């Protein structure tokens, strides 16, 4: 009997994992507020990035403020491959990263181990 119930619970757990991690879940996108010819977005680093998608306006100096709450060493750096940025994020500190918004396009950022990803869109 126990064997049968373990099988059933196990299958259910597998089904849940598939749905939870691979199912389609909406991600939040944040559009930067432009003030006085500057734009900035606060990004919380805790089990990933919130928001995971940031939209910036082209040509306006931009700052992304990362604050890491997560203790995981996976997330202790943030890397923007297209901008040559590899910035350490000390836990609990707000780290400002300047983004060059001259070129419109889609860019990505990731954690130091390339496990967590974020998306940066620079629009015209």
């Amino acid at each position, binding site marked *: 009997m*126990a*064997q*049968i119930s*373990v*099988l059933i619970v*196990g*299958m259910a*757990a*597998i089904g849940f*994992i*598939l749905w*939870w*991690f*691979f*199912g389609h*879940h909406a991600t939040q996108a944040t559009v930067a507020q432009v003030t006085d010819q500057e734009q900035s977005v606060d990004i919380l680093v*805790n*089990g*990933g990035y*919130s928001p*995971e998608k940031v939209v910036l306006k082209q040509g306006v100096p931009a700052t992304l403020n990362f604050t890491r*709450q*997560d*203790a*995981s*060493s*996976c*997330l202790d750096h943030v*890397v*923007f*491959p297209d*901008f*040559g*940025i*590899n910035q350490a994020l000390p836990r609990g500190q707000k780290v400002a990263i300047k983004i060059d918004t001259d070129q419109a396009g889609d860019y990505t950022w990731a954690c*130091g*181990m*390339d*496990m*967590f990803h974020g998306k940066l869109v620079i629009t015209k």
Partner: protein
Amino acid sequence: MSITKRFIIALIFSLPMLIQMVLMPWGVMLPGGHFTQLGLTTVVMLVAARPFLQSAWASFKKHHSNMDTLVAIGTVTAYSYSIYAMITGQAVFFESAALVVTFVLLGQVFEERMRRNASNAVEKLMNLQAKDAEVIRDGQTVVIPLAQVVAGDVIRVKPGQKIAVDGTIIEGTSTIDEAMVTGESMPAVKKVGDKVIGATMNQTGTFLFRADKVGNDTMLAQIVALVKKAQTSHAPIQNLTDKVSDIFVPVVLIISILTFMVWFSLLGASLGVSLIFAVSVLVIACPCALGLATPTALMVGTGRSAKLGVLIKNGDVLEAVNDVKTVVFDKTGTITVGQPVVTDIVGDQTATLKIAAALEASSEHPLATAIIKRAEADQVQSTAQLADFKAIEGKGVTATLDQATAFVGNDKLLADATISATLKAEMRRLQNEAKTVVLVGMNQQVIGLIAIQDTPKATSQAAIQALKERGLKTVMLTGDNQLVAQAIAKQVGIDQVIADVLPSDKAAHVQALQKNGKVAFVGDGINDAPALTAADVGIAMGSGTDIAIDAGGIVLVKNDLRDVVTALELSQKTFDRIKLNLFWAFVYNVLGIPVAAGLFYTLGITLSPELAGLAMAFSSLSVVTSSLLLNRTRLKSQQRTVAA
């Protein structure tokens, strides 16, 4: 709390259990039995493992998973089951939970250190900068911080001081050690008019120079920017791991559940045994090793090459270099010095040079410059009076020199002048060597010949030889005529010559060569930019134009063609290392997971959770160590430089 602190706490509290495990066969038990184990493990879980749980939960809520997810689920399962087992009087395995946490943290402590090592190339470069500079302002010498130096400032540099910024010497001479920026091991002699590079070391003399480039415009700042970009760039091979790491953790979770189900429901193992296998699977799978494989190797490889004066711009280039079959060179300025020099003087050396120098003194033609340079080098000076200076269209120049008519020009002058048979034969010989021959004469009689040619750099031949030894085909692509191109190709040993190429056609020729495999193009001029872009690997000479440097994927700071060999070799080594790392990371998981799942149970091969934890810590460590070893791999091209 730092990882190190967490590790120490985990170690202290799990050590008694480790000792008990080892001494168990001799009947040594911890006083207090299960309760002591529960107490110790609870401390480890609450203090050292809590951040794992928090991180795992935070990412779970966002539909993400990471390595912490695996560690958290594994240890919590072992811990909670042991409490249940203790209550129901079955075998417990608290020590598994505690030791897995300890070993994983041990791995992370080392990994953190090594990752710092791998990325410190940029910091080292930045630290090369001078801290301050002695600037002359309003006639006064003041020492100001580097950041306050502006372009146009006149800066004094004493022996043993670092040069603050890039500039041009306006007074004095010295020898300067530029190894830190260019990788060139021989100190360079610099005099008035020569360029100096910021962050290099002045050795012997005191001099003044005018700052041309400061702040982010200096060579060092640009190198740092390039290296930073390269180190964070993606190699295409990484796309594979990106895809794997997205699904890795959930897949491992599923395998772990399946393991449990098979052992418990199908094979009828006890709850405890089945759980052990499931937990081992969770713990051994390490996505970190996969994630670290490429970036750490890229960091170390690009950092090391920067120190050698080879700037590799990104991971794509590194990967492309691996399949290069043909190396195409531009001629002027790349294989050759780029400035014509006097190679032969036939006839009365001094007299010939004296007349030529006197007549060409006011000309800015490259050939004239070559003659004047040679005259300066040989310390030949003309004191004669020059009068009636006249240019003969398309032929040369004449002037009255000490009451005689002197002339300098090309062989069209022979229409009006006579030449001896010996000189005529010499002229033919030199012309066949693709040299430009200048006739020098007095009173309608040719008295001497000066041969001028843009000669290959001293190192070009060795570089091309080394490339051939690596099995690469070498090609010269030039706008110059066939005769000149052939002569240079022969001197340096190039396989194939494509001459008379219009600048606009260079890219097309590169594309044609690409039909036989990947092509690297080495060039320096504005006209090379399209070819640099069209080639699979564009290698720009550091002396070249900014446009060429932008177009190239690799920049050679020293202008030494032997660095092409270094660049290819180091890129290949780095890429091989990435492949090796990925191989190991995959092998760890591909082999580790089945063993941990108990697939080889019948052969007597199993993996307890604590051993799995150790293996996992070791896998990330071995990948980072392997990347760091790139700093020490022997390079053939560098040994040759030392020997020479």
